[in-house]
């Protein structure tokens, strides 16, 4: 028990940009875990995208040592993602900890995700240590923020360290309070092995690794372990800790955070939230796990060049190794050919996957407009889930369509309340609550369809509030509404890749907008192409791409035909990148520009 008194397992939670990763860097640096020379900004954000966007996607644990009042302590920091899409991953980290450091920006105060994270931490019975960051900035108001934490969250913030992670001010204060205020683990080392898997990782040399928090007992190389969920047994080949690189050690014991390697071939064999126990001396009851995360946003991803289908599949499989939350299955589109229907945690997750496919795998892709998952009750009484507009049953057989609703939590300075409420109304929001936290901050609660959030809500919110408002949301059930499928026909043939499910009242505006855009991007062809937007058999918008009238090089002067030849070769080459809808040819690039979000409407 004395050993565990010298261990603290904690995470850092914060609203995006409040300085979570920078504080993590400072803690690592102060405890001497990584030499100054090795420090890149944001140590724990190992992906390029994470560093560039200043966000954490994948959680990374690290073990630190700190000498406090002459005694050495082991601090296990489990980093957490800071974006709403990854709330699920946050809760995984929290389950492995006893305490959480809550970072609040002294210039901004409490924001939407501050609150979400606090509630998550409280759900997991964690002790919360508030820390006020960015006190070096001229606009910092640490005392105001201290009061806000006490008033809004109800935490005692009287001793909250006032720090600047960037400047390295008062970092020891944080370390000291982690030891003083956060509880130590209280497992039983001699009990049978009971271990929580909080993440998995695929290592090219060691295979699939379990990131674990040992609750009771101990585990070392040579032990036989068993996964509680499926009963599969493995021989442990190595156990170790994170510094943050993987460092093998002899044994992991109750209270420790580390990894277990056991010749597991595929991360899919590791179910995050599962309990590992000993094969020889198993426990009876598993730890409370997590439910499998459900994707919220769906889209088709297709290779721009149809022949790259296999490359795309390989890339998605590789990404899936370390991102179990990514779902995908083959999809065939008449317009876009073979690709994949993918499920994402949210829009950011989707953007990140797109970006990684393009950057890490050098693929050119077309992504269809994001959709959500609808619950459709047919007249026969059968209930189906539809996340792809093309799969929506014929309207004649639909009794009702329910769509996912979120509870949107918006924090804003009071002057934008009007603009935000207007936006929420436009987005079919239902007002729930409005609270003045203090004179400078309002919390607005709306119930809004997820599909509206997914369309362009966030960008709109940011632009209408000059970037001051913050948003967080959580799924809050389903609600039936007058939803219809909007189709686009080119020369009479439906272009499946463009279909979308939308509220009837919004269909007209969007139909016109997309039809106009189509008219701009579809090149003139030998014949006139009517573009029609239709709800069922009813045409609600129409544009026309006029027939091509001139496609000729008039001059072949002095026998110089090289130019003509080159042009024809270019045209021939261009055909390869064309998609065919009926007898209409559309360059793949045209789809890209249609399907790209229109953020400025």
């Amino acid at each position, binding site marked *: 028990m004395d050993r565990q008194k010298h261990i603290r397992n904690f995470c850092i939670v914060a609203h995006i940009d409040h300085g979570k990763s920078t504080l993590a860097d400072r803690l690592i640096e102060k405890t001497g875990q990584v030499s100054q020379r090795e420090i890149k900004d944001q140590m724990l954000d190992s992906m390029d995208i994470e560093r560039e966007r200043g966000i954490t996607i994948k959680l990374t644990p690290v073990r630190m040592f700190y000498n406090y009042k002459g005694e050495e302590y082991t601090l296990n920091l489990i980093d957490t993602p800071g974006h709403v899409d990854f709330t699920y991953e946050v809760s995984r980290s929290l389950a492995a900890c006893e305490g959480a450091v809550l970072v609040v920006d002294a210039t901004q105060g409490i924001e939407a995700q501050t609150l979400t994270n606090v509630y998550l931490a409280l759900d997991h019975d964690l002790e919360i240590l508030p820390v006020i960051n960015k006190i070096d900035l001229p606009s910092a108001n640490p005392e105001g923020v201290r009061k806000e934490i006490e008033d809004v969250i109800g935490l005692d913030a009287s001793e909250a360290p006032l720090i600047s992670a960037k400047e390295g001010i008062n970092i020891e204060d944080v370390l000291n309070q982690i030891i003083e205020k956060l509880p130590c683990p209280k497992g039983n080392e001699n009990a049978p092995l009971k271990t929580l898997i909080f993440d998995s990782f695929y290592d090219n040399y060691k295979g699939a690794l379990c990131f674990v928090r040992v609750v009771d007992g101990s585990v070392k190389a040579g032990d036989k372990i068993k996964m509680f969920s499926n009963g599969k047994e493995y021989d442990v080949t190595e156990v170790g800790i994170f510094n943050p690189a993987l460092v093998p050690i002899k044994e992991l014991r109750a209270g420790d955070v580390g990894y277990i390697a056991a010749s597991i071939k595929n991360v899919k064999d590791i179910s995050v939230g599962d309990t590992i126990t000993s094969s020889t001396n198993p426990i009876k009851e598993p730890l409370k796990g997590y439910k499998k995360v459900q994707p919220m946003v769906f889209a088709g991803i297709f290779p721009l060049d149809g022949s790259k289908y296999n490359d795309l599949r390989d890339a998605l499989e590789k990404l899936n190794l370390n991102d179990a939350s990514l779902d995908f299955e083959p999809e065939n589109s008449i317009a876009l050919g073979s690709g994949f229907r993918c499920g994402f945690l949210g829009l950011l997750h989707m953007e990140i996957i797109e970006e990684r496919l393009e950057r890490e795998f050098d693929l050119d892709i077309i992504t269809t407009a994001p959709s959500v998952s609808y619950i459709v009750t047919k007249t026969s009484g059968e209930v189906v889930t539809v996340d792809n507009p093309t799969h929506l049953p014929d309207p004649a057989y639909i009794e009702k369509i329910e769509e996912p609703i979120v509870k949107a939590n918006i924090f804003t300075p009071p002057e934008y309340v009007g603009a935000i409420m207007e936006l929420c109304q436009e987005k079919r929001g239902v007002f729930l609550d409005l609270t003045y936290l203090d004179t400078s901050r309002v919390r607005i609660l709306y119930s809004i369809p997820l599909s509206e959030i997914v369309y362009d809500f966030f960008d709109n919110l940011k632009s209408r509030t000059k970037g001051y408002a913050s948003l967080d949301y959580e799924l809050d059930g389903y609600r039936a509404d007058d939803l219809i499928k909007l189709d686009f026909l080119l020369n009479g043939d439906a272009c499946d890749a463009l279909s979308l499910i939308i509220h009837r009242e919004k269909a007209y505006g969007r139909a016109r907008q997309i039809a106009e855009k189509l008219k701009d991007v579809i090149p003139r062809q030998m014949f006139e192409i009517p573009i029609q937007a239709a709800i069922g058999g009813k045409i609600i918008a129409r544009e026309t791409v006029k027939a091509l009238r001139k496609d000729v*090089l008039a001059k*072949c*002067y002095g026998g110089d035909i090289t130019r003509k030849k080159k042009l*024809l070769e270019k*045209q*021939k080459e261009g*055909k390869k990148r064309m998609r065919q809808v009926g007898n209409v040819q559309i360059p793949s690039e045209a789809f890209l520009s249609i399907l790209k979000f229109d953020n400025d409407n």
Partner: protein
Amino acid sequence: MTTKKAGLYIHIPFCEKRCFYCDFFSTTDKNFIDNYVRELVNEIKSIVNKNPDYTLTTIYIGGGTPSLLSVKSLGEIAESVYGDFHCEIKEFTIEVNPNSAQNLRFYKDFGINRISLGVQSLNDDILKKIGRLHDAKTAINALDAAANLYENVSADIILGIDENQDVISDAKKMLPYVKHLSAYMLKVEDGTPLQKRLQQRLTSVATEDAVVNQYEKFYKFCMEYGIYRYETSNFARPGFEGKHNSSYWDMSDYFGIGAGAHSFVNGRRYYNKPDLKSYLEGAHSGNGEEITEREYSFSDTIEEFIMLSLRTEKGINISEFYKRFNKDFVAEYGEKLKKTARYVISENGFVRIRPEFMLVQNGIISELL
């Protein structure tokens, strides 16, 4: 030994002033004309030495502005051609600028039997807009003079310079003098003064729809007056089709001499560097310094034959195709012909683009290739 027939193109790159739309190789520096003519003579000599088995059937002197050459210079060139090549000349054309048409009557002496006048327009504003030095009156005078001296006169007209260009009025005025009209649709080429002026919004040109409307009006007018289209941009009274230019479409051999001139000889395409200085230093086909962009494969040649033939009204000559490539065109391209059936007619041994689709030929051709 003189069994093969060929055409000869002679490029004269000198101009009084460059037109705003022109991106062909030309220069306003006329000090080098004498040296240039000397080098043309050298190139002719060397070509004949290398290709002794050719008989010339057409000659075309183009530019630039060939009518800037003195009668003496032209004489030197003609003398060299007749002296070195074996000739059975059916057509000998010279391009004449209305502004420098004073020597028309002397050209007969060199065997020139066809005059191509660069009229472009008979509207003074439009002529000014594209930087031409002549006006409508000068052009009519030149047409009149040419028609009095030569039976076979052609005029060039450029469509699409202006949204409201009255091409029919121009065509009507030219009609009494000409047997042949070339109608080019203005194309704004990169790096031309016209492009710059457009970018600076100092001028405007016709929209695509307007150009096509002008072309279609022009086409209708010509058909009514018995001037038939035989190639995308070329119209003639029966029997007055340009023989030299036709050799481009039907893939006959032609030699091109002078700076920047293109040749097609024995299945090989090459050209001289479009640069006066290096030409004067002897960098040309006569000395083996021509530029060949790439080797033509068998299928390249077939594709070229198709694309060039389809520029013409009569289209692909199936028996000629078989003679050249030992392939049955209809069998070989049956599938593609079916796909393009709306735009292509196959009859009487020819496959051709339907007249109404002539201006959208590129898409059809690339579908067929």
